[in-house]
């Protein structure tokens, strides 16, 4: 049974929590607790379903575990790095039409037991942090890019519809999405 060694004067950094997970699994557990709600919120926002959000979250943290050595605090916050992974998981899952589970399988993480109460709890809790999740993911973008990426990627709206709403051409919206996603990609290059 773990023992507490006292209250620390400052929270452990994400870098410290991610260090040597094989010998410090509790650190990774704390890392999970720290970011769990915001990642779940991101996936609830993207999929509208608590059960899918949980599976996607599990895959995201499994990948984070696999690639923890790729996290470089000099290149940005851990949350941005984690959201980079989350976005890859979401993209791959959408492209294949099923939730990605490859990292979970590699790490031997068992299928999660779900019941209606847990799903409802996830959806309720995550909805409160969804905006924070999205804001964290889009933090590096300009306001124009944020609106375009949010509309296109998270709300799955067409370029034409966004162009009409933003009163600009499809080409301008596409450019904002492209530039926004390129910025996000730069932020997550260290996560691979």
């Amino acid at each position, binding site marked *: 049974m773990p023992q507490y060694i006292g209250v620390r004067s400052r929270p452990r950094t994400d870098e410290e929590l991610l260090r040597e997970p094989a010998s410090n699994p509790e650190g990774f557990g704390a890392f999970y607790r720290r970011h769990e709600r915001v990642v779940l919120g991101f996936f609830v926002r993207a999929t509208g379903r608590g059960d899918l959000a949980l599976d996607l979250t599990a895959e995201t943290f499994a990948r984070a575990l696999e690639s923890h050595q790729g996290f470089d605090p000099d290149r940005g916050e851990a949350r941005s790095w984690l959201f980079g992974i989350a976005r890859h998981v979401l993209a791959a899952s959408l492209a294949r039409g099923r939730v990605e589970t490859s990292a979970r399988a590699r790490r031997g993480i068992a299928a999660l037991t779900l019941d209606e109460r847990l799903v409802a709890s996830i959806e309720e809790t995550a909805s409160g942090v969804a905006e924070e999740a999205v804001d964290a993911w889009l933090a590096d973008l300009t306001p124009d890019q944020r609106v375009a990426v949010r509309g296109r990627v998270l709300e799955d709206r067409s370029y034409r519809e966004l162009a009409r709403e933003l009163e600009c051409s499809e080409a*301008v919206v596409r450019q904002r999405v492209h530039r926004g996603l390129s910025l996000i990609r730069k932020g997550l290059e260290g996560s691979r």
Partner: protein
Amino acid sequence: MTEVYEELDPPRALVPQLERELMDAARRTPQPAVHGPRGRARRTGVWWRSPLLAAALLVLAFGAAALAAQQLLLSGAPVTLPRGVPLQPRSGLGVPLPHSSTAILTQVTDPAGGPDWGVRFVATTRGYGCLQFGRVVRGELGVIGEDGSFSDDGRFHALPLDYLEGPFPCAPLDARGHAFAGVFMDGTPASAQVVEESCTARGGLTHTSLPACPAADERLLMAGMAGPLARTVTYADPGGGLHTVSAVGPQGAYLIVERAPAKLGLEGGEYEPGPPGAGTIRQIAYANGQVCNTGQELGRTARACASVGEQPIIQPGVTAASVASPVTVRLRREAVRMRYQTQVLPMFVISFRARVPVTSGASGYLISVSCGHARQEGPVFANVRRGQLVTRDFARNGCRGTAHIRVVYQYGGHTHGLPFNLGGHGLTVGTRTIDVR
């Protein structure tokens, strides 16, 4: 003794089972895993890729084979305009001017064979110049029924002249009738169906109901108008090899089609419009000896080439005083259709009376709303008569506090390769500040 790090973090996980599984996995996982190779892409059923016909084509000389590919392809119905695209002579891009389109300016071979790709220039009633691209059959530009397009009927479907929205480079024409614009597309399907896509490029996040494009049918495409002085365009292929193609005709049009790289951008089917030189173009050389080195590497935009040879449209007599006009702002709630529901959202309703007319895309009014750190702006996409009352709605987007509204008349600048992205001189029409509770 085991340390537990819980300070300031949630003391309990929302899903403790997952936390436990991850900690167990952490104990077992000292090294990162190596990802496996990508899966093989499916083949399409298009006739020139069938083994029998491919073998037959191999015995023919390349030119004869390409010609045969073009001549044997049956024609289907023309491509229809996307739903909801307005075709108005005096708004948006306008409509094609009669007799303004050119014949196919340049043709390039497709990496997998079949009909060549080509480009065609079209000028519009709002003073835009656009470059359409597609596959070429019997001298016409169009789309092949493959990659899910037109139910994979294998036929050729002509692209109408007024099919201008989407990825085609368009920019306001300068004083001498030249447009400067380019586009880089990563993951374009070989069908050339690029507006209402029939498949999703690898990594694509959207169009989730569509099948993934076969990797072998994805192309890296760069097209543009580099201006009347442009002579050659040098680009890097996905393997890093450098190639040089000619820029042709009065618009300095260029077209490059390669197999898509193994790794596509985040959005898959990336599409970046902008000035000429976007994508993996490394250099544009001009007849006057100028050379533009873009410094770009694959997938990263560096510096696009300036509009060499552009002659800006001069608007004499336009001054701050001649454009100045009061701006009014009202707050209103309006029903806006969202993804899952219609929401009633608070809006800014911004109005002003235009004192200088807008007769083409080379000039226009731009409205911006700033509130805290948020800023949104949008041009008025239409011709405007002198004295016309112009009204536009902007979502309040949670604005609380002081909102600053500004209307600017912009003219006479470089086009930056985008329609409705006005540069050049900006003259303030009027400003307004309101408190939003």
